[in-house]
């Protein structure tokens, strides 16, 4: 039984240039204690989809359709006041850049305390004690002293720890981490990820880890969603995605990972072309125009379903047959996207 079940989510933004179809037919679920990685490049809709779960994309020019079931209630149908009880309480979120995500004028302690007192009826002193305890838990040294510091007095990694402490203030059942390590250097990144893992093991919460970095997903997630141009193109367990990928876009992502057997002067493989504009996405498969294997049928949208034999939990959106996929995904002896021969129609 899923903790959170998103079905057929659509998010459209009405802009002056037209309607942006930011999220299209997105369905996925996450169970308690599970870590779900969501991978995709900037603008693929991974952040928008997750912010929509918490109602953060609501606005006069946003159209949202679908269902987001959380503990038996549809979050999309909830009014502002009801949804507020969920935000920061049962579902918490942390963001990419901890410096800009923390208010520069309030101390770290103030901001954590505010989060606690919004959802719990506790005294200022108790909330403060809890804030100190949380800071200690996420590995901020000398929490008793640092609780009164301002965000600009923290280092990047410490700020993200403080953000995490704030998110965990009310023991959420689900933590959405939106590129939590993108703004950090590599060593700090590893520390933050292992902290998240550790906290998850201890607190038993589910984590949605949004990233553009397949490496981050490989080490931390149980399952992975690959998103492209507003849609989920592949959904599978970590091994399935890395060793038996079904969608050409996933092949391209895997192929563009730097590898040690690359020669010094070789160019890093990349996927030719650019993602389509979501103002006017192509008909059918959104990846069609960049895909070397596209054929007539790709003009129809392939549903997200299990397409490889013996793995019902592994779903993708590509019309190629299982045999074709296994043959075509090999480029230069490893998984990758082959070069395009002629422009796709």
């Amino acid at each position, binding site marked *: 039984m899923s903790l959170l079940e998103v079905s057929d989510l659509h998010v459209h933004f009405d802009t002056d240039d037209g309607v942006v179809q930011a999220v299209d037919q997105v369905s996925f679920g996450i169970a308690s204690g599970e870590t779900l990685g969501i991978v995709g490049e900037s603008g693929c809709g991974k952040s928008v989809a997750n912010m929509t779960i918490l109602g953060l994309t609501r606005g006069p020019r946003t159209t949202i359709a679908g269902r987001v079931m959380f503990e038996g209630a549809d979050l999309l149908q909830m009014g502002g006041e009801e949804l507020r009880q969920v935000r*920061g309480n049962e579902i918490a979120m942390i*963001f990419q850049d901890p410096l800009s995500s923390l*208010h*520069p004028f309030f101390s770290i302690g103030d901001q954590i305390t505010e989060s606690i007192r919004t959802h719990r009826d506790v005294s200022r002193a108790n909330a403060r004690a809890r804030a100190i305890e949380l800071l200690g838990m996420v590995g901020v040294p000398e929490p008793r002293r640092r609780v009164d510091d301002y965000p600009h007095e923290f280092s990047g990694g410490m700020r993200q720890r403080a953000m995490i402490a704030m998110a965990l203030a009310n023991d959420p059942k689900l933590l959405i981490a939106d590129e939590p390590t993108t703004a950090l250097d590599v060593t700090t990144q590893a520390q933050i990820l292992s902290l998240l893992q550790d906290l998850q093991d201890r607190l038993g919460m589910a984590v949605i880890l949004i990233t553009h970095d397949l490496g981050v997903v490989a080490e931390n997630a149980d399952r992975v969603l690959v998103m492209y141009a507003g849609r989920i193109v592949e959904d599978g367990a970590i091994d399935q995605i890395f060793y038996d990928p079904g969608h050409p876009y996933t092949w391209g992502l895997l192929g563009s990972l730097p590898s040690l057997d690359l020669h010094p002067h070789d160019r890093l493989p990349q996927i030719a072309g650019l993602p389509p504009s979501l103002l006017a996405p192509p008909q059918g498969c959104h990846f069609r125009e960049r895909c070397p294997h596209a054929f007539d049928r790709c003009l129809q949208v392939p549903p997200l379903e299990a397409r490889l034999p013996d793995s019902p939990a592994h779903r993708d959106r590509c019309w190629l047959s299982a045999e074709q996929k296994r043959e075509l995904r090999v480029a230069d002896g490893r998984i990758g996207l082959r070069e395009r021969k002629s422009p796709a129609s």
Partner: protein
Amino acid sequence: MRRYIARRVLWGVALLFICSAVIFVIFYAFPSADPATLRAGRAATPEQIERIRHSLGLDEPIYTQFWLYMKNLVLHFDLGFSYQSNVPVTTLILDRLPATAFLVVGAAILWLAVGIPVGIVSAVRPRSLLDRTTMVTTLALISAPVFWLGLVALYLFADDVGQLLPIFPGIGSYIEANTFLAKAESLILPWIVLAAASAAIYARYMRSSLIDTMSEDYIRTARAKGLSERRVVMRHGVRSAVTPIVTLLGLDIGTLLAGNAILTETVFNIPGVGRLVATSIERADLPVIQGVVLFGAFFIITFNLIVDIAYAYLDPRVRYE
């Protein structure tokens, strides 16, 4: 923090000294008219003019003159005497200052009380009917010249000539008012007229500042924490958005005290610093003009200093620079 303030104060004093030097050079070294001739009046003989020039010290070299001017200013708070009335310049200015200060402070309270809430409401619902209405109104108020607005206000509301609702004291009532309350009453129309354009500017400024702030990442965080929208706007949004307003306010109060309320004072015949400048310029009363300009520089520098200190309290990042 103390060091920060000390540094700002020292810098303010230095700036004031530089200002006085520049003002001195402008008015004494390049006078538009010869002060001695002006002082001597019509039909004066060249000998009389020379005698006056000597008695005013105008035949000394400029650095000696500047030295004497600064010495008198620093040691005796003496800015010289008016050519017109022989009254000390400091007395003239200090006589006029209370009226100007009363006018400016009252107007500032009024425009803040109106401008900030209007700006917040417009920012919360941008493009709404309310927002569009207030933005058009504010544009009209900003475009209306103060002297015109003042005359319209008198024409409609003054108790002597008012056509619509003649309930407020009109031109010259401030001079006749003796008690604090009577003075306040006589300033109602001037306050409104002086505050109108500023209220409109502050509303627009607050609106755009808050709209910018509301798209910050930390506002998204505040919402993700489950705070009520009211708290998100008032505590997290306004707190940041109001800081640039403080800068604006400091400058505005400084310049208005320095004589920028001249139009309002003239229309309503309020004996303030602005009126003093106007009459002094008409009569080429150099010491008075110079004194007012120096006072103005003092106010502007002082209020900038207050702004800097206020900033340090408002924004913790400034404190540790």
